[in-house]
């Protein structure tokens, strides 16, 4: 039995990721148990942890702090493979400038910044914010979660804030939106994506399948 805990901290649509993981598990013919939960005991009992996130970071962090999810995630991160998605990834960083400035969990070194109100591409064309849709992800480091995912595959993004980190060694994938921005980070047993693998059809399902089989080593 492969137990997957999707951490629920009251921020809306976590069903997409749970359903995608169940689907991938069925494809693998694996016995998979996906729980969407905020229960520390269930998370502690899981083999793998998914830390999703949607919405505004202030509300996310407020819920994380209220439910003491930060400590639960911190414990999980010591031992288990963790996949953080979108605002889930942003919540792992040091600080976000969203909502007038919010301190995050600081499990990964870096800041979360706003794209800006007049974003342009290299030829001066206007870029919409949020960055919404399918963009190419360049794999900057090899990683078990990239297995069978072609380099420069398009993944689905939807975000107005992006991660900036000086620790280039944790940057695992980048995408181009006005400048090269972080699409994926990896640090030991944590893999984090700005894009939504659960919404990225075949390549996203491949990444989730890799996660189900990943032992957390790099």
């Amino acid at each position: 039995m492969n137990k997957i805990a999707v951490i629920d901290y009251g921020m809306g649509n976590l069903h997409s990721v749970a359903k995608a993981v169940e689907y991938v598990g069925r494809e693998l013919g694996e016995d998979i148990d996906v729980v969407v939960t905020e229960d520390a005991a269930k998370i502690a009992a899981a083999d793998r942890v998914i830390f999703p996130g949607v919405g505004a970071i202030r509300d996310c962090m407020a819920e994380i702090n209220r439910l003491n999810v930060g400590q639960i995630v911190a414990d999980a991160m010591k031992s288990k493979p963790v996949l953080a998605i979108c605002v889930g990834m942003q919540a792992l960083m040091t600080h976000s400038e969203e909502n007038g400035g919010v301190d995050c969990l600081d499990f990964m070194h870096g800041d979360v910044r706003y794209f800006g109100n007049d974003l342009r591409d290299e030829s001066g064309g206007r870029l919409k914010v949020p960055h919404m849709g399918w963009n190419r992800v360049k794999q900057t480091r090899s990683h078990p979660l990239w297995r069978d995912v072609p380099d420069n595959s398009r993944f689905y993004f939807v975000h107005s804030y992006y991660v900036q980190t000086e620790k280039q060694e944790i940057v695992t994938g980048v995408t181009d939106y006005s400048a090269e921005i972080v699409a994926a980070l990896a640090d030991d047993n944590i893999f984090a994506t700005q894009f939504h693998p659960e919404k990225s059809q075949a390549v996203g399902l491949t990444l989730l399948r890799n996660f189900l089989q990943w032992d957390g080593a790099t």
Partner: protein
Amino acid sequence: MALAKRIIPCLDCDNGRVVKGVKFVNIRDAGDSVEVAKRYCDAGADEITFLDISASHEGRDTTIHTVKAIAGEVFIPLTVGGGIRNLEDIRTMLNAGADKVAINTAAVENPEFVRAAAQRFGSQCIVVAVDAKQVSAEGEPLKWEIFTHGGRNPTGIDAIEWIERMVESGAGEILLTSMDRDGTKAGFDLALNKAASNAVQVPIIASGGVGTLQHLVEGVLEGEADAVLAASIFHFQEFTIEQAKSYMAARGIEVRLT
């Protein structure tokens, strides 16, 4: 290397069946909505929009059931619209597996609803659907007004001002339908779309009037749409999603080829 322009097939659904009317009449049946959604996803659709045209009357439970079924099979973004009137409706649809909801009439009746929805669930899942109709006479500066209740009720509200207001309230995306063009296969209202796209920073989905693949190209290149939505050309197999994408790619538009 850039963000792809999205192609979004739209499923107008009545009791779980995909239907498509011409100007909201002459409903034709186009199949079981779960099967249709899966077919489009496999063919490379970038998102699916599901509009419950029976929502304001009946079939609410059928819709929830259908959304759940689609979300278990389709791993691309799913927008659900039609009869979204309060925060509880949004929660229900998100819990059923929708990624975004489209709000139309309820936003006009209570504009603060959009702000409350964006604050509660995040702008990324709040799409405001705008049904606009040209009200300026020939020779006058172009002007559009928004309509509600599936295009039946005029509001007197200027469409571009309304879109600006909705974005300011927290809409993450605008689904812009030209009532003049919807169902006509005469092409998008390009001037309307361009005016909207230039007025706000969020993505605009052009809708209403697609009859040819060239219309999709015009929607992006001239209407400056970030995504193009179409129903009947895909439902009745006039064109496939693959054909649409290769046609657009051949004309220099970035699309996601699968």
